[in-house]
């Protein structure tokens, strides 16, 4: 009984800090009590995705550190010729701002979702999807430019051949994530717009009742995509 109060009761009865963590994990029930299964599963998926992206970035680090050939200077490689002069990394900087803005609109969509303002939520999600699609288009432009300049997974005109393989692998995998996110956003935005979460309409795939929490779970994925870009921006483009 005392156990039940400790882990289930309101926050005042639950031990704080590490004791609370121990109580949650030792309670012989689900450990993440305030998070629904859907949210916990998304977090665990994102943790696994963290390891995949982590392995990619570590592979890149290993390739770059172990080659005796000079690494191309990303600041120059990703410069654009605008108004008669080369501006370093400008395209990547714009892509970063676009992705951060999409994260901002997504966070607000989640908030309006919980306020049950479905039209505003759907509109903000569509704006997020639009910004995501803009990001992918700019990436397609960047890929096209580099491919015409002769970058391949096995060679490039400016130095270490490993630059090409790591570039296509890392940005390609991230771009795939953004694309899947845009599709995911459009599906959920449609559900919100139609009012599926107000009437608890059952999902076509899972047959489970839809709830506004789905917007937050979708948001977790989207913010994660932005989060990964923060690391790619720092390690691949600035380093």
């Amino acid at each position, binding site marked *: 009984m005392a156990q039940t109060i400790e882990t289930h009761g309101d926050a005042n009865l639950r031990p704080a800090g*590490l004791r*609370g*963590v121990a109580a*949650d994990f030792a309670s012989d029930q689900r*450990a*993440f*009590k*305030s*998070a629904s299964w859907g949210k*916990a599963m998304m977090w*665990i998926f994102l*943790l696994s995705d*963290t*390891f995949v992206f*982590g392995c990619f970035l*570590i592979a890149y*680090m*290993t*390739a770059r*550190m*172990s*080659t*005796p*050939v*000079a690494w191309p200077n990303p*600041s120059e490689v990703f410069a654009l010729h605008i108004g008669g002069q080369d501006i*370093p*990394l400008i395209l990547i*900087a714009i892509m*970063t*701002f676009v992705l*951060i*803005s999409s*994260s*901002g609109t*997504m*966070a*607000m969509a989640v*908030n309006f979702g*919980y*306020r*049950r303002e479905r039209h505003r939520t759907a509109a903000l999600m569509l704006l997020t999807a639009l910004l995501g699609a803009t990001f992918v288009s700019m990436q397609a432009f960047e890929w096209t430019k580099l491919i015409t300049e002769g970058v391949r997974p096995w060679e490039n005109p400016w130095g270490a051949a490993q630059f090409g393989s790591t570039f296509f692998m890392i940005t390609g995998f991230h771009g795939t994530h953004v694309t899947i996110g845009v599709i995911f956003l459009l599906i959920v935005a449609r559900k919100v717009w139609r009012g599926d979460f*107000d*009437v*608890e309409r059952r999902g076509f795939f899972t047959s489970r009742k839809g*709830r*506004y*929490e789905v917007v*937050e779970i979708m*948001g*977790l994925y989207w*913010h994660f995509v*932005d*989060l990964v870009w*923060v*690391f790619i*921006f*720092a390690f691949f483009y*600035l*380093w």
Partner: protein
Amino acid sequence: MSETTAHAQTHTAQAQAHTGQQHPIRLYLFVWGLLFVLSAFSYLVDYFGIQGYLRWTLILLFMMLKAGLIVAVFMHMAWERLALVYAILMPPVLVLVFVALMVSESQYTILTRLAFFGTAP
């Protein structure tokens, strides 16, 4: 039928009001602005061509601040139960061990490459 739907609706409204992550819009706008400023700073590090230890320090600092803001506020980690926070944030820290292993591995690789192929950088 419509009565049951209405009942279900109020029921979920109550349930969601308790579980949902509701925070003032102003907070999100503030974090959004901060992320913009921090990204601009990291871009300026490259634009002004800052080199050496200062460059790596600034890049890593802005990166960690941005990542922290996204996870804590946008992904609501700051308001989650501690059991979930530890389960998610602790494992990636261990990746640093993997990084250390691969740093030592790549140093060995470049050493052997230079010793046997003699290609100086």
